[in-house]
């Protein structure tokens, strides 16, 4: 119960900090909007792009790539922005698991909100009909949460290894690729309006990946923060 209390307290602190500055949220939201707009301009240089046959395919893949890069940018901050002394202070008052859990939950909340908004913005510029809208939104939320569980641990490792963005990308992309393959598959079937029961198995694998990643992170993080 101690762990739960500490996690909630740290989570509250993360949210209050974010609410006061709104730096991560606004920054990443602007990042998403400008990326979507760049893609919109770039793709519309080709006339009749929207009526071409591969449009729905490109639509889906492009969306996930935008979300992927937004997630890397948003979550890389979670440990990189903390100063050494502040981290030390956290560890004196809370258990390392609570620190990791609070960061993960905070990132999951941030990413679900951001990916939800990103989808809205994306749909404004790239008009498309989604077969099963509710299911697509659900996939996007799951995707945001899975990105945050994986990237939180990776950003903790990258932050310890000298705070550079290259390392974050190199370490996280191979880890996130199976997730993104699954997500693109499920979201494509949601877009085509296929029967929902077809993607239960893939959702199961995503859930399993989340559980494995969180479990390993909780076990390994206490070794990581010690300096």
């Amino acid at each position, binding site marked *: 119960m101690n762990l739960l209390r500490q996690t909630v307290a740290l989570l509250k602190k993360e949210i209050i900090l974010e609410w006061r500055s709104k730096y991560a949220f606004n920054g990443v939201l602007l990042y998403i909007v400008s990326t979507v707009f760049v893609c919109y301009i770039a793709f519309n240089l080709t006339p009749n792009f929207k009526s071409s046959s591969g449009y729905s395919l490109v639509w889906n893949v492009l969306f996930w790539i935008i979300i992927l890069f937004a997630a890397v940018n948003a979550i890389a901050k979670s440990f990189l922005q903390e100063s050494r002394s502040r981290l030390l202070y956290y560890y004196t008052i809370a258990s390392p698991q609570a620190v990791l859990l609070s960061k993960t939950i905070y990132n999951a909340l941030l990413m679900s909100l951001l990916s939800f908004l990103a989808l809205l913005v994306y749909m404004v510029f790239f008009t498309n009909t989604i077969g099963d809208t509710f299911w697509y939104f659900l996939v996007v939320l799951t995707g945001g949460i899975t990105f945050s569980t994986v990237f939180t641990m990776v950003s903790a490792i990258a932050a310890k290894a000298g705070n550079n963005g290259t*390392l974050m990308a190199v370490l996280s992309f191979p880890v996130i690729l199976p997730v993104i393959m699954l997500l693109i598959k499920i979201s494509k079937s949601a877009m085509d309006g296929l029967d929902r029961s077809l993607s239960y198995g893939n959702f199961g*694998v995503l859930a399993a990946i989340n559980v494995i990643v969180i479990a*390993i992170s909780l076990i390994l993080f206490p070794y990581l923060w010690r300096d």
Partner: protein
Amino acid sequence: MKFIYQSWWKILGVILVFYTMIAGFLLPVPKLPLLHETIRNVYFHVPMWMGMLVVFGISVVYSIKYLATSREEYDLVAVESVNTGIFFYALGLVSGMLWAKFTWGEYWSSDPKQNSAAIAFLLYCAYLVLRNAIDEDQKRARISAIYNIFAFPIMIVLLFILPRMTDSLHPGNGGNPAFGRYDMDNNMRAVLYPAFIGWILISVWIATLRYRIRLIENKQNSI
């Protein structure tokens, strides 16, 4: 650690690998459509992956041991096992690509298992990049041990769980029957199982040799 200085298992490994090379090319194999004589590649392609899995497994065990004890030798075992594993990874990938050229028509047919294997290869390359990024010895050992433990289950998911869920050209995946089901007769099993053991022993031997060289280098540097 006395095990690595004994020689019986190294001799056994060499004998088994020679046996599979001779018996693998001479013993009769079932005549199957498409595969024909290329089925003999199963004596090399699959055991190399087994060797890779075992050395990666060893490196994870030693990473865990390192985190528990902080002994530098354990970190050396882990990194040299990964180096050997990457070598066997490349061998498994190349032998698989050659086989794919003759049976599926292309070196790279975008088969889910091939793609997963390429991703997992990146995963372990990232491990080596991570090691290069950190200067301080103990910090490098600790962080790379953590990443190694983190990467191993993801590699297992990539290579053995995801390809099974989709259509794959590999046997045993996506509803295809596994090789052992009816393609393989007892003649082939008599070569394949010794080949597993032989290549695993050889890969462990290479890893121990690399570890011992590293140990000597370490001692020379510390003087």
